[in-house]
């Protein structure tokens, strides 16, 4: 095991870096896109609600791998060249954003509707009321479930391995194939995933306590 790390560390670290990069990008954008669609789902405008609903239901109910393959195969066919890393990151972002939308929507709906009414009566627009009054309260409520989504996101980034995204899982596969040391390799890979997810998990718990 130590041997694997000692001899293969450049590949492993590159994989770790890619996994981390993909996760950070996907986390950032899925949080924004997810929140946006969450707001769509509860807007007074019915068309917006339907759009939000369709988005969430479609992308939440298709396997991540299918979404990713779609971007990896279909986009280059009709739109533009795209590498595995990009396709995987987009797929992961869209897939995760659907789950985040559901989480954030339930958070928004658990905020007292009087908060929105108070803000709108005070002269703020719907979006301003969301931004300054409702969302800050909603996020506080949804930190624990969001933490779960983030951790799932990091783990799900292993989908990159299927589209040659050079992530941790991909490198693990390569090393295992080349060295035939399957067990120790995936042991090391597992530990490297923990290196990302454990601090994330603790940070979310810390945030939860701090904001409580």
């Amino acid at each position, binding site marked *: 095991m130590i041997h694997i790390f000692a001899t293969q560390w450049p590949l492993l670290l590159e994989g770790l870096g890619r996994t981390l990069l993909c996760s950070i990008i996907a986390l950032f954008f899925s949080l924004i896109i997810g929140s946006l669609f969450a707001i769509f789902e509860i807007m007074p405008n019915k068309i917006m609600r339907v759009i939000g609903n369709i988005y969430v239901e479609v992308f939440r109910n298709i396997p991540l791998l299918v979404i990713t393959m779609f971007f990896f195969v279909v986009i280059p066919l009709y739109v533009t060249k795209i590498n595995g890393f990009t396709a995987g990151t987009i797929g992961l972002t869209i897939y995760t954003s659907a789950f985040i939308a559901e989480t954030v929507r339930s958070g928004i709906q658990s905020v*007292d509707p*009087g*908060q929105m*009414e*108070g*803000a*709108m*009566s*005070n*002269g*703020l*627009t719907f979006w*301003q009321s969301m931004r*300054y*009054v409702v969302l*800050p*309260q909603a996020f*506080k409520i949804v930190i624990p479930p969001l933490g779960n989504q983030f951790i799932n996101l990091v783990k799900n980034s292993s989908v990159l391995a299927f589209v040659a995204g050079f992530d941790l899982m991909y490198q693990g596969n390569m090393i295992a194939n080349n060295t035939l040391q399957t067990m120790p390799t995936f042991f090391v890979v597992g530990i490297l995933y923990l290196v990302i997810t454990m601090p994330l998990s603790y940070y979310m718990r810390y945030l939860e306590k701090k904001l409580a």
Partner: protein
Amino acid sequence: MSMIEFHDVQKYYGDFHALKNINLTVEAGETVVLIGPSGSGKSTLIRTINGLEPIQKGQLIVNGYDLADKKTDPNKIRKNVGMVFQHFNLYANKTVLENIMLAPKIVLKRPDDENREFAMKLLDKVGLANKADSYPRQLSGGQQQRIAIARSLAMKPKCLLFDEPTSALDPEMIDDVLNVMKDIARDSDMTMLVVTHEMGFAREVGDRVIFMADGEILEDDSKETFFDGQPSNERARQFLSKIIVHK
């Protein structure tokens, strides 16, 4: 110019006819008290005035804008028409001072020092300058309601709507809130529409009393007629005797 004009307004919740053919004019500067049994549509009526509830028929003109017109953005009206709720609805994530300063900052782009100074002046006026840095949950109901009034005043509105502002309060706090409201009615040219069963308030600073039942306005009297003469409507008379005996 009239501040609020209802012309044959109808409001439905689904099939339920909540406001029936409402005709009502409130002049600028008037203080009007709205009373009526539970479920009569008082909240519904007051909430249509700043567009929190849409109307289905008729004309509703507030501060010159017609709310029945789909093209009217209710936000335009809300900048000049504040609302005070039964349960305060202060921003739970903001301090008292931030509650008061938020809308002037975002909506009116009032410069920060001017904003703060005016907010502190309002806090002083409602007797809570020492609570500027508290959060709403740390305050009593009566204190929260006075903050909510200060928050509305910070927008320098022309009109204030109150929906049972004292009915969620312990008795000993009611007067603190009513006194603030009386001061506003006396000292400013604010138009006020107040849903309340506090008849002391109506007697002292009210100009008119309106009685609603089952979604209709049954009585619209000057204060003198209402209290000293007799409301002509039988239900209004009964209702009045009930709330006055209760006090």
